[in-house]
Structures are given as structure tokens and as C-alpha cells.
């Protein structure tokens, strides 16, 4: 197994263009597990975690967006000022693995793996993030919902890199919760990101681990938009309960050795209700 370690984006794009069968590795927290388990046996690895352009982020106050390089780590996402700009992403990052994993693991890697349990993904889906892809010859940008195609399947082409993710900065409460059987370092059995946007008086909800990919709960969002009061930050108990039911109804989980489908559906409803209550603490 050989490794290439580009430090500039154009160099990285060139080498992936000439080695489209190479495995891209950022933090390696998914890729190395697969290699060690023998599920992947790449001849060539391209390490992208030293590419300066992928390691940085920028805030555009005018456009109210943050553009995050694909190789920015969870530890960085948890810190100020990013944590204030996109609080739900910081919360989701804090739930990821252990300190070691958060120091190495990246948002780009989470997208690259595209597990339905990826903790960064419900946040990106709820906030309507855009994924930027580039090859040596072209660039394109996709809404995250189009980027995620299925269980561990994405729209990424073999000669492309994920370069960055643009995330809208919303005014309003946002948060993330995930259910696991252990209190830390655990794969989500169900997860949810709720974000509010006070400028449009809208509520967004995306759920994870309850379908082949992240699900935006359109019915629940529409219902909440009509039922809550942004002015009083209030939601009735009935609204909170119904919101959970709609979230559960939007999910289509499977049974596996980690949990039953019924439990996952139930749990995602509970998470949705509780997140709504956190966003609208008054009855």
C-alpha cells in the first residue's frame, strides 16, 4: 500500500485524477477501520488531511453562511466561534466517538462514508447545507440531500474530492440529540437535528439512523411551523406530542442487532418532541 500526501488542493485533485482507484483518507477513522478489517485493500491511499484549503473555514456574514473545508475536524467544529455560528453542528460533534476520534475525524469523512448513523449528517440536512465537489477538470455543488444517495452511497465520482460544505447561519435555536445504549462513544440508534429560523418562523427537522439515509421530516416541519409561537417561544404539549408522532411516521427504520425498527421509530419520535420542547420551552 502506497500513500500520497498532497499539501495543496490542485495537487490533491491532480493525483486523484491520475489515481481514480486510490482511497482518499482524511482522518482515517472510517477508512482505516475498513482497511484493518480487510474490507478494503487499496493499493494507493491519498491522504488529504494536510491539504491547507481543506483544513480551513470561512464565515461570510453578508451571505450568512459558513464554508467549512472538508478536512476540518470535529474538535475544531466544537470550538468557538464555529460553535456559536452553527450550534447544532457543535452539539453533534460533541457526540462523536471519543476525544481521539474527534481530533482525527472530519466532516468530509462523515459525508464520504455516508452512514445513516453519521452524526454530522442530520445537521447538514436540517440546515440545508451544500456540498462542494471538485476534480482536476471540474467543480460542482450539490444540496446535501442530493449528495447522499443511499446507505454508504454518495454522488461522489471516483476522480472527485469533497472540498467544502457551505452551511447557512440561521438565527434561532438549534440542537442535536442521539440515542445510543452507551453513554458515550456509541453508534446512534436514532438521532435528530432540529433547527429554527426566526426570520422565516420555520422549524426544520432531520432524523438519522431510521432509514437508508438522513430523512427531512416535511410533515412535522410544516405542522410545527403552523403550531408553535416564535414570539412566546411556546408550543402546547399536544403540539410537542404530535410533532414527535409525525417524525416517527416519517422514519422507516430496519431491525438489526443494534435495535428493533419499532424502538428506533419510537426513539426518534421522543427525540423530536424533546428537541421541540428545548426550542420552545414554554407551554
Amino acid at each position: 500500500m502506497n500513500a500520497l500526501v498532497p499539501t495543496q488542493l490542485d495537487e490533491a485533485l491532480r493525483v486523484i485524477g491520475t489515481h481514480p482507484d486510490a482511497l482518499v483518507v482524511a482522518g482515517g477513522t472510517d477508512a482505516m477501520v475498513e482497511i484493518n478489517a480487510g474490507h478494503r485493500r487499496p493499493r494507493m491511499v491519498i491522504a488529504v488531511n494536510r491539504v491547507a484549503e481543506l483544513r480551513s473555514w470561512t464565515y461570510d456574514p453578508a451571505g450568512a453562511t459558513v464554508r467549512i473545508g472538508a478536512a476540518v475536524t470535529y474538535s475544531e467544529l466544537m470550538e468557538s466561534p464555529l460553535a456559536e455560528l452553527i450550534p447544532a453542528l457543535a452539539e453533534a460533534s460533541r457526540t462523536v466517538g471519543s476525544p481521539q476520534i474527534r481530533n482525527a475525524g472530519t466532516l468530509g469523512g462523515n459525508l464520504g462514508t455516508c452512514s445513516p448513523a453519521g452524526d454530522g449528517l442530520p445537521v447538514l440536512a436540517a440546515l440545508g447545507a451544500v456540498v462542494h465537489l471538485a476534480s482536476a477538470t471540474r467543480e460542482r455543488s450539490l444540496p446535501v440531500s442530493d449528495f447522499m444517495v443511499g446507505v454508504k452511497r454518495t454522488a461522489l465520482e471516483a476522480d472527485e474530492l469533497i472540498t467544502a460544505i457551505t452551511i447557512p447561519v440561521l438565527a434561532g435555536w438549534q440542537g442535536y440529540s442521539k440515542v445510543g445504549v452507551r453513554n458515550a462513544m456509541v453508534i446512534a440508534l436514532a438521532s435528530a437535528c432540529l433547527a429554527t429560523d426566526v426570520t422565516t418562523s420555520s422549524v426544520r427537522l432531520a432524523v438519522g439512523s431510521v432509514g437508508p439515509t438522513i430523512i427531512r421530516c416535511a410533515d412535522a416541519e410544516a405542522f410545527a411551523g403552523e403550531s408553535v409561537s416564535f414570539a412566546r417561544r411556546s408550543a402546547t404539549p399536544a403540539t410537542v406530542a404530535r410533532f414527535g408522532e409525525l417524525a416517527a411516521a416519517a422514519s422507516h427504520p430496519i431491525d438489526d442487532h443494534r435495535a428493533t425498527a419499532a424502538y428506533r421509530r419510537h426513539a426518534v419520535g421522543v427525540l423530536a418532541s424533546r428537541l421541540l420542547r428545548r426550542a420552545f420551552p414554554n407551554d
Partner: protein
Amino acid sequence: MSALVGERTRAGRLGDSITRPDGTAKVQGSFQFSSDLNAENCLWGATLRSPHPSARIVSIDLSAAYRISGVEAIVTAADVPGQATYGLISQDQPVFASDVVRYVGEPIAAVAADHPETCRRALEAIVVVYEVMAPLTDPERVLDGSHPPIHPDGNLIRHQRVLCGDANATGPIVVEGTYEIGMQDQAFLGLEAALALPDPGAAGVELYVATQWLHEDQKQIAACLGLAPAAIRLTLGGVGGAFGAREDISLQVHTCLLALRTGRPVRMHYSREESFLGHVHRHPARIWMRHHATADGLLVKVEARMVFDGGAYASTSSAVLINAVTHTQGPYRCPNAVVDGYAVRTNNLPCGAMRGFGVVQACFAHEGQMDRLAAACGIDPVDLRLRNAMVIGDKLITGQVIENVAPVERCIRETAALPLPDEPVGGHDRNTMRLPGGAGRTADAGHIRRGIGFAVSIKNLMYSEGFDDYSTARCRLADGVVTLKFATSEVGQGFVTIAGQIARSVLGVDEVVLGTIDTGVGSAGSTSASRQTWMSGGAVNAACLKVRGLLFDAVAALYHVDANSLSIEGSDIVGASGALRVSVLEASTGLEFDETVEYRHKPTEDLDDNGQGDCHTAFAFVAHRAVVDVDPELGLVKVIQIATAQDVGRALNPLSVLGQIEGGIAQGLGLAVMEEIIMSEGRVRNPSFTDYLLPTFLDMPSVVVSLIEEPDPIAPLGAKGVGEPPTISSTPAIVAAIRDAIGRPLDRVPVRPIDIIG
């Protein structure tokens, strides 16, 4: 070869909390575990395993694998020169499967090659044709006789009945329940690993291996290789935990066989996934119990039916079963009993020793019953346990009288008196991370209910049922330095610390050198059954005392005093009159004393057909109180605190005792709420630490401890074994606390979220 050897342990006598000689190296990563061992010109070994839980082997074709360059040897059942099977109690497990495979993961062949990658390709190139059969996975099908034997020894490994007192006795209060215990893994962090160095001409082999019992390995390896035991020399490789999983042979015979075949050193390591298949586990069990009691909660009779799934091979199943049935009553007086225990053979993973050894399963059931009884009688659960607590002179249902020290009541009272956590739900800082759900921040304080649970246990110490249980130690004193030699496996429990403390206390020296742990001295027995401090500690103590006697004789002769008047004070030898004072260093300069001693505990008996007999040696007791926070809606749990008072006899190294208590509680917590090997149709669904969950720091509660020190007069140092008790009743205490929080029965461990939400 391990970092312990030859290292001079620090000063510290019995009762001191000195730190371990291997601690720093382990924390800093420089400790040499057996997987770090290497030798020049070394080959790698790897094992081909059955993908089927039950199948006939039609053919094995090695030709394609042999054509791969770098492959030096491939061995199968046909190459085993000695006994084809091995086992700790009955030799029913093939070194390699030849005609049938009986579990997923059963070894079929082993390869030696120049590189792990070559091994992998060679294993892929071996063509095995199977005729797949339906697996026997339900233990009840063994008992109803509806399944033909899957092994020449039959499907029933052991049945043991216990009949005590009046089988027809009854009481006004009757409670019953059926309890289930899932399959727990020992989950040691240091995976199976060994290095074998062949003698010239294949006359013998030297094996470095992480094991619990060097001499038992030696015996079994020799039998399978058709060599004399002396031809197999074992040295302990650095061990990263054991918990019972290193008591059976795993890769020992395979590694030696490959080394003898190739005439080259061979190293073999298991991966984590392979480790799940490559060692025995805690028995999953189903236990029905019915308790009869008086209206004020005094036990009249216990009835039980226990079914332990031994998996494909016997391992220690029969001994595990005996422990379970003889501990049915728990640490409570109970005059009458009717118990039937069965250990059965299935096509599931083989099960055997794990910390607690059968008592874990029995205790989960009897403690569930004690809570049911308390509820039925309207008595507080702690009070009910106090009313029934065993005392010295009480009889077990086996007829054996509890002698020596049995502070059951003290364990209960002191545990109950330990302070409850003063913090509210979520902690003083109101951190949602400290609620059930932890880092996932699923709950707010208002969603949480707190519960408190209590459990008590009794655990036999050392080997039972007539086993000739002994340990050997050698003590050499020369020029003020003591050198100790023993074959006691240091698996992390800290015997290497205690051994030095004993020598320093008995002989008044500062310098204690520990010899290599190997088969160059007699057997120490297994590092299991909470026995090494008692047994090897007893042997080291006896050897040191013998040397001290000789030293005193020499001093007495030199100074013309009575040897019986001499004693050790600090690092000096002093006479009774105070007239004589000479340092041990001075007295031993130019002299050498070298003594080897075998220590045995008092003999035990077999059980008769009615389960009567003095089958155990000694017992230790412990109580646990658990405080848990539960999110009833999501079914998530956070254990907040465990309080425990443990009967330790005497704390020879209080810090080590605390380590055992905290570690044992972590393992008991794991069984209570997360650890389970999930099997379906004989296949393991979760053979990785991604899906087999172990408690993290955030799952571990604060632990408040009271050590009950009533030295046991029959224990050589007054100390009881402390390793197993913490694991045993911590599990039922936590489950009781969850029941208390949600107000519903929970009869299965681990408790899953769906069990809580109901």
C-alpha cells in the same frame, strides 16, 4: 520477556498501598505484551475457522494454498501427533475439526507463512467442502431429548441435583420468577498471542504465551503434541487481562505445532473478531426459581431449575454449573431446597470460565427473588436480606457448614450506611451529559427517574470438588536480597506486587527480585477462582518463612542465642531480650538459603447424587447498593453510584483491592446494561467493540467502598480473594435499581432499552 522480570519491586510491606511494578510501563505503552514478542526468522501463524455452526467436513484441499509462495506449513487434524482432543475437565475438543464442525469459528487448519498477508491469502485458498447441517441452538431441545447427539459424549454435559431437607416444605409466601442471563465476553484488551521457538530436531518447544495457568497449558500441549511435558517450556508473555478467557487452550497447540513442523519460530495473534470466536464466554443461562417463606420473610425452601448453555465443547461447564447450583440460596439461611442444574451442549460458542464462574447467573436470579419476596411480604428489601443473612455455623443447601468468617450482616449494614449521592439528577452543574443518554444529550432532568437497588452475594474461593489445588513458590535469600520464583500468571491482578510485599514483611528485606514467570518451577495453579493471593500468596509466605527459619538458625548459632527468640523488626533481626540486633543484610551476607514450598488448601469433597458434600473451601461475601437514573421513555440508564462493603479478610494492598472492586463493578455494570454477545442460529452478530459495548468512563459511576477486614484464620495471610465478588452482586443491584425507578419487573440481563420502555 515481560517487563516485570528481573525488575526490583519498590519497598512496601503488607498493608501498604504500593503501586504495581508493571503499572508505569503499561500506562506509558512500553510494557511488552505477548503480542509484542518477536524472534529472528519468525513466521506468522493464522487459523482457518468454520463459517458454519454445524456441518460435516466432506473434504479439505490444501494444494492451492501450498502453491502460494511464502507458505511454509499447513497443519490439519491429520498432523496432530498426539491426542487429537484437549480440554480442561474432559478432553472433548479437537485441536482441529476433522469430520464435523460444531460451532462458528472452530479451527480447521493453521498456516505458517512469511507474512500475515500471505497467511490471509493461504487461508482463502484452502478449499473446504462442507455438508451443512441444521444447528442445535436451543438448550431446551437437549433436555427434551428431541435432538440427536452432536458429539460422541452426548448433548448433556452435566446434570446436578441438590436435595436438602424436606422437599415438600412450603410457606405462606411463595414467589417465583424465570431469569435470563445473556452471553458476556471477558473482553480483555490484550488479544490472544503467542510465540513458539522450536528446539533443534523438533525435540521440544519453548512457548511464550499470555495464559492463566502455565502448567495446565503445558500438560495439554504435551498430550496433543505427543511429547513429554518437560519438552514444552512455557514462559508467561505479558498478559493484557484474562477474566477466565485464558484458562482454556486457544492458539497454544497450533503455534507449537507450526513451529515444530517448520523448525522456525512462529508467532500467532488473534484479531478482535477472531478473539470473540477463539475463547470461551460466560454461559448464557435460564434460571427458574421459586422461594417459599414465612409471612415475616424467613426463607423456608428454594426450588430452582437452571439451564446453562455450554456451547459446542465442555470446557469448564460442569464446574461452572456446580458453582451455580451450590450458590442457589445466596448468602441466606435456607433449610430446604430442590435444585436441578443442567449444562448442555449446543452448536453455540463454547462457554467456560468468566469472573464469577456460575455464581453471577445464580445471584442474578436469587437477588431478583429476594426483591420479589420483599414485595410480597411488604418488607423493605434490605431488612428482608438482614433477616435471612447467613452466619457462621449455618449450613449451605449442600450440607456444608459455613466456617470461619461470614460477615454477611456487616456487609449489608455497612453498605446501607454508606452515603447516598448528594447530587440531584444531572449533577450539581446540571450538565445534560450526566443524564441517561450521556453525550447524546437525549434528556432533560425532568424526564428522569431515580431508583435504588440492593444485592448481596456469596462466592466460593479456590477450586472445589476434590481438586488437588496447590501452588508452588521458591524463595532464595542471599546477601540481603530475596529472589522469588513462581509460575503464578500475572494477568493484571497484581500478584507481582503482593509477592514482594510478602517477602519484605516476612524477611525484613527491601530488595525483592522476581524471577521469570515460567514452568521452571512447580505449578501455581490457575489465576482464577479468586485464588492466587491465598494460594500463591500462601506458597510465597511459606517459602519465605522457611528461609527465615534457616536464617534465624544461622544467626542463633553465630551469636549463641535461641533461634525461637528471634524475630524481624523493620530490616533487622532482633532477639527477645533486646540484646541482639543485626540487620538481615549483615546476617545473610555470604550465606544463601533457597527453599521451595507447595501450599495446599484443605481438601474438598465431591457432591453426591443429591448434591450433598463439603465441595468448597472458603467463601467471601459482599453487598452492593446501586443508584441509577433512568429515562423510562427512551429506556436509557445511567448508573450514578455503587456503594459496597466487601468481606476481604485483610487488605494486603488496599489500592489493589480498590482496583479489583472498581474493575469488577465495571464488568458487573456491563452485564447489567450493555454487554452481550448476540447470537442467532449459531452465528455471532456483534463480534467487534463497535457493537459489543463495554462501559466507558462516562458509564462508570462513582464507587464508595467499605472494606470489611476480619482476617480469615485459615487463610495464610488472613486475606480472602477479592477479584470475583465485585462482579457478582453489582449486576443484580443495578437491575434492582432500574426496577425501582420504573416500577416493573426486569428478569433479563443485559437490560435493553426495549425492556425498560416495555
